[in-house]
């Protein structure tokens, strides 16, 4: 695994040098929180089980960050690197393919986590956001959700023939999911007919899991979410490995 650390550091630097990627990962969700926080405040609301708008939005927005990295960041960057011949150049070194993939995933994971930290800091500092869960549990849930969606992102990159197609596929999949899964708009606000559809979107399960763990619910109450996301992760890994191409 020679060069692995160096590669992770370089990947992180490159990520921070892409204004669009940095914006959607680190700035977008806190900005949204400030926007809706200003409009609705964070007063306890029986509609959200006695929690405020911000208390509910923060765990939901985590899903928003996850999908923007998984469906908009990873597919485009991976396909573009393949298209330009960057992956080819790496392949001509003794670097193991596994090391390349691991460093890639690690840098996305760190950036996604940084986005979550920024979101939590804004929620806490500006709105005194409530957190009733266990940090380790939330972290584990976040990790499961992130990795499942990263796997789908690599699958999109592998299936799409070009970066442009990867971008289109990622966006077409991401935008409806953002609005129908309860990540951008709380599920409680959506009509029952929409919520019936939402159940079939993997991102809904990230939202439900994160909100539940955030509120201090146990894992036993979320077996469905864990099963769905675990399934997505396993199938995603198998398929993305199957479709991954160096050139």
């Amino acid at each position: 695994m020679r060069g692995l650390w160096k590669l992770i550091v370089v990947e992180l630097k490159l990520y921070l040098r892409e204004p669009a990627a940095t914006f959607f990962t680190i700035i977008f969700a806190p900005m949204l929180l400030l926007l809706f926080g200003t409009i609705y405040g964070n007063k306890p609301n029986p509609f959200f089980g006695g929690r405020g708008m911000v208390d509910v939005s923060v765990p939901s927005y985590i899903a928003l960050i996850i999908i923007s990295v998984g469906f908009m960041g990873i597919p485009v960057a991976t396909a573009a690197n393949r298209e330009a011949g960057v992956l080819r150049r790496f392949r001509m070194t003794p670097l193991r393919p596994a090391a390349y993939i691991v460093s890639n995933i690690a840098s996305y994971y760190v950036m996604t986590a940084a986005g979550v930290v920024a979101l939590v800091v804004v929620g806490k500092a500006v709105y005194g956001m409530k957190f009733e869960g266990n940090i380790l549990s939330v972290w584990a849930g976040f990790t499961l959700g992130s990795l499942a969606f990263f796997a789908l992102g690599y699958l999109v990159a592998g299936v799409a023939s070009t970066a442009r197609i990867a971008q289109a596929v990622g966006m077409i999949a991401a935008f409806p999911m953002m609005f129908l899964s309860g990540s951008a708009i709380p599920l409680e606000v959506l009509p029952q007919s929409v919520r019936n559809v939402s159940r079939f979107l993997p991102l809904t399960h990230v939202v439900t899991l994160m909100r539940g763990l955030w509120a201090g619910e146990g894992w036993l109450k979320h077996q469905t979410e864990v099963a769905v996301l675990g399934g997505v992760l396993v199938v995603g890994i198998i398929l993305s490995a199957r479709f991954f191409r160096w050139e």
Partner: protein
Amino acid sequence: MTAITIDQLHKSYGDLHAVDGVTFEVCPGEIFGMVGPNGAGKTTTIECLEGLRRPDGGRLSVLGLDPQRQGYELRERIGVQLQESSLPDRLKVREVMGLFAAFYRRSADSTALLDQLGLAEKSGAAFGQLSGGQKQRLFIALALINDPEIVFLDELTTGLDPQARRAMWELVKGVRERGKTIFLTTHYMEEAEHLCDRVAIIDHGKVVALDTPRNLVASLDAENRIVFSLEAPVDDAPFRAIQGVTRVEQSGGRIIIFGRGDGLLVRVVMALDSAKIRFRDLRTEQPSLEDVFLALTGKEMRD
């Protein structure tokens, strides 16, 4: 021991036999060139040697290693410049060197490399800001970063202007002087003639000739040509009588005298002078690898 051995290499893409029984050996310390038109099978051959492609048949050995089964070990010891590759646009030259150096057990001094390749003052520039020639030089620096035993250069100077191309040739010669074996492909015959110790001419996936550029040209036993322009047409007959002249062509005020042997030029110029014939733009043309290719394949080698 040979640096590279290729024995009966075969590789097809569907019905196309890209490489059809290529066989040769490369000695340590030489600049070996594979020349031929685009699509002749050069890149496929070099990519099989680098372990990037799996041959359909034949035996390959690079530094005694099998590129397919011992690819990682091989890549520690070779340097590669690919015909089509790239780096992230926002990665800086200095970072590129540091990153790639970290992939190898052994690494050369990257500051010195950038210096030698004329990239020292670009070390803080992003890859995307470099010109074509600078990118190409950076790729050569990357090919040398592990202090390799063999350097593979695939179409090194394609897309460069003539001046940059000549500068690149000097670089390659410099690399060889440091004791490296160089395996290159090119579709510029002039490049092969200038740079290579030995040349394999490849066409339709087959090696059609292999020797030093000098021997290949000599084997043609081709005529030298003396070309000049006239202000008015003259009779060919006196030229034909000159010793060594084989034939004379005259058209539109332009004469080409074909012939062999030393002193041909002197005799022709003296004949012109004594006959008081006024001529312009006199030059001589020696047969080149270009002519060798034409003679062997029956077609012009153009890009």
